[in-house]
C-alpha cells in the first residue's frame, strides 16, 4: 500500500510579498546613507577648514603667510608666517622616519622571510600594540624618559626638543610601516622565491634582491603611511617638543609643529572671532594639504614602481 504524500504549500499573500520588497528597499537606502557618512565627513572637513580660514586669509595676505619667517599670532605684534611650523613638522617627521623606516623594514623582512610561522602569528599582534599606546602616554615617555636619557650623552640638550619627540614618534609608527610592508612582501608569489633558491641564493639574498624589489610599491605605500602618521602626530610633540615656533632644521632645538600650535591655541581661551583663533583653521588647512601631497606622492610612486607578476 502506498500512501499519497500530502504536500502542504505555504503561500504568502501578495501584499506580504510586496511589503517585504518595500521593506528591503527602505533598508537599502538606510544602509546607503550610512555609507555616505564617509563622503559627508570628507566634504565637511574641506568645507569647515576652508570656510573658517577665509576670515584669516582676508586679514593676512597669502604671500606673508607663505614667506614670513615668524609665527607669533598670539603676540601683540602678530606675524603670520607658517614656515616655522612647517619646519618643525618636517624635522620631527624626518627624525621619526630615521627610526621607523630602518626598524620597520628590517622587522618586516624578518617576519615575512625568516620567522617561523608560529612566531610570526604570535608576535604580530604584540607588535601592533606599539601603535595602540595612547599618544599622550608616548608624550610622557618622550619628556620624562627619553629626554633625560639623551641628556646623559648630550648635556646641552634642552628639556623640550624635537629629537626625543621624533624618536618616540618613530617607535610609534614602526608597526604601521612593518605590517604594511610585510603584507606587500608576502604578496610576492612563492615561485619567485623558489626560482631564486634554485639559483643557489640564500634567504637573505632572496629577500633583498627578489622579494623587496618585487614588493617595492607596497613598501613605498607603507613609508608614505608612516609619513602621514608622523606629520599629523600631535600629543607627543605638544608634550615633549615645546610650544615655541622656531624656524630651525636642528632637531636638538625646541620648536612647535603645526599640530602643537593648534593644541596650544585650543587650550587657551581666545574668543572665537579673533584672528589668533581663526589661525588654527589655516594651520589645519596646511596640515591637511601636506598629508594630501604625501598621499598623492605615495600613490604616484606606487604606480610607477608597480611590478606585474
Amino acid at each position, binding site marked *: 500500500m502506498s500512501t499519497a504524500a500530502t504536500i502542504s504549500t505555504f503561500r504568502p499573500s501578495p501584499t506580504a510579498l510586496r511589503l517585504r520588497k518595500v521593506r528591503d528597499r527602505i533598508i537599502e537606502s538606510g544602509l546607503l546613507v550610512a555609507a555616505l557618512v564617509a*563622503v559627508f565627513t570628507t566634504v565637511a572637513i574641506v568645507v569647515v*577648514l576652508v570656510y573658517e580660514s577665509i576670515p584669516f586669509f582676508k586679514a593676512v595676505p597669502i604671500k606673508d603667510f607663505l614667506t614670513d619667517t615668524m609665527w607669533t599670532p598670539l603676540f601683540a605684534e602678530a606675524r603670520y608666517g607658517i614656515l616655522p611650523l612647517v619646519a618643525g613638522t618636517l624635522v620631527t617627521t624626518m627624525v621619526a622616519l630615521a627610526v621607523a623606516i630602518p626598524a620597520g623594514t628590517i622587522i618586516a623582512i624578518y617576519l615575512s622571510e625568516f620567522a617561523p610561522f608560529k612566531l610570526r602569528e604570535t608576535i604580530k599582534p604584540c607588535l601592533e600594540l606599539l601603535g595602540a599606546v595612547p599618544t599622550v602616554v608616548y608624550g610622557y615617555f618622550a619628556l620624562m624618559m627619553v629626554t633625560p636619557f639623551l641628556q646623559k650623552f648630550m648635556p646641552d640638550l634642552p628639556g623640550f626638543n624635537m629629537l626625543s619627540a621624533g624618536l618616540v614618534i618613530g617607535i610609534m609608527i614602526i608597526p604601521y610601516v612593518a605590517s604594511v610592508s610585510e603584507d606587500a612582501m608576502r604578496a610576492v608569489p612563492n615561485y619567485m622565491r623558489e626560482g631564486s633558491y634554485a639559483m643557489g641564493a640564500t634567504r637573505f639574498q632572496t629577500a633583498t634582491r627578489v622579494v623587496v624589489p618585487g614588493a617595492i610599491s607596497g613598501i613605498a605605500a607603507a613609508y608614505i603611511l608612516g609619513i602621514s602618521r608622523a606629520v599629523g602626530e600631535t600629543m607627543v610633540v605638544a608634550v615633549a617638543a615645546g610650544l615655541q615656533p622656531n624656524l630651525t632644521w636642528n632637531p636638538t632645538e625646541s620648536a612647535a609643529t603645526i599640530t602643537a600650535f593648534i593644541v596650544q591655541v585650543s587650550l587657551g581661551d581666545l574668543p572665537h572671532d579673533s584672528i589668533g583663533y581663526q589661525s588654527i583653521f589655516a594651520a589645519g588647512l596646511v596640515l591637511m594639504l601636506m598629508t594630501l601631497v604625501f598621499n598623492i606622492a605615495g600613490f604616484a610612486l606606487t604606480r610607477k614602481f608597480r611590478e606585474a607578476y
Partner: protein
Amino acid sequence: MNAAVISVPADSIRAGVSRRKILDRVFVMIGLCFLFGALLILVILFLDLVRDGSAKLTWDFLTSFPSRNAGRAGILSAWVGTSLIMLVTAAVAMPVGVAAAVYLEEYAPKNWMTAVIEINVTNLAGVPSIIYGLLALGLFVYQFNLGQSIAAAGLTLALLILPIVIVATREAVRAVPREIREAAYALGATRWEVTAHHVLPYSVGGILTGMIIGLSRAIGETAPLITIGALSFIAFLPESPFSSEFPFFSFAWLSEAFTAMPIQMFNWVSRPDPAFQVNAAAAGAILLGMTLLMNGIAIYVRYRYRKKINW
C-alpha cells in the same frame, strides 16, 4: 662550437657560500634584535609608568576629583567622562559603521558612487586626528550648537573610528562563504533577510574585534578633545544616565562639559611641578592598562570566533 670554460677554484666557492650563510644568520640576529627591542620598549614604558606612579595607584586616586593639591588629586571625573564619551562613540560608530560596511559588501553596485565611497573610507583612515577635532569644532560645536559637551566629543571620536569599524566589518562579512548566501537566496530570502539572518550572525566576531580596537583607539585620543574644548579641571560629575524615577534614564549628561583620562594626563604632564608628574604617570599607567586590556580582549575574541566557526 666552442664552450666557454669558467674555472673557479672550489675553495673560493666554498668560502663564498659560507660567507653568505653567515650573512643570513647575522640578519636573523639583527631582525630578532629589532623585533624584541621594539617590544621591550613597550614593556619598559609600562613598567616605568607603574613605577613612577606607584605612589598614586590607589583606590583614592580613582574616587577623587582633580585638585590643585597634587597629593589629593584623582581621576574620578576623568574616567567617568571617558566612559560616557565611549558610550556615545560606540552607540554611533557601531550602527553606522556596520551599516556602511554591509552596504559596501552586500549591496553596492559597481559604479562611480561606490568607488567614491571606498576612496573616502581609505582616505579618512589617514586623516590626522587633530583635523577631526577642527571639523568637530566648526561643525558640532558651532554649527550644530552642541557646545563643548560629551555629545560633541562622542560624535567626534565616532567619526574618527568609523573607518576602523568599516574595514573590520567588511573583512568579517567578506569571510562568509558564498554558499551560505546562495542557499538562503535559493529558499526565497530577500537580500536583507540573507544579510540579517545569515551573514551578520556569522560576522559578529570580526565586528566585535573591530569595534573593540576602534574604541581602544578612541579612549586614548587626546588632540581632538582638546580642540573641541575639553576642560581639564572638573570637580563635579555629569548627571547620571540612570535615574530612580520613570523613565529610569536621562540624557542630560549628553550636553554637559567634560574631561577625559588622556586630557587629565596631558594637563598633569604639562605642569612643571614634579608632584603632578607622579599623577600623570599613574593616570598613564591606568590608561595604557585599559588600552592593552581592550586589545587583549580583541585578540581573544578574534581567536575564539575563528576557532568556533568551521565552514
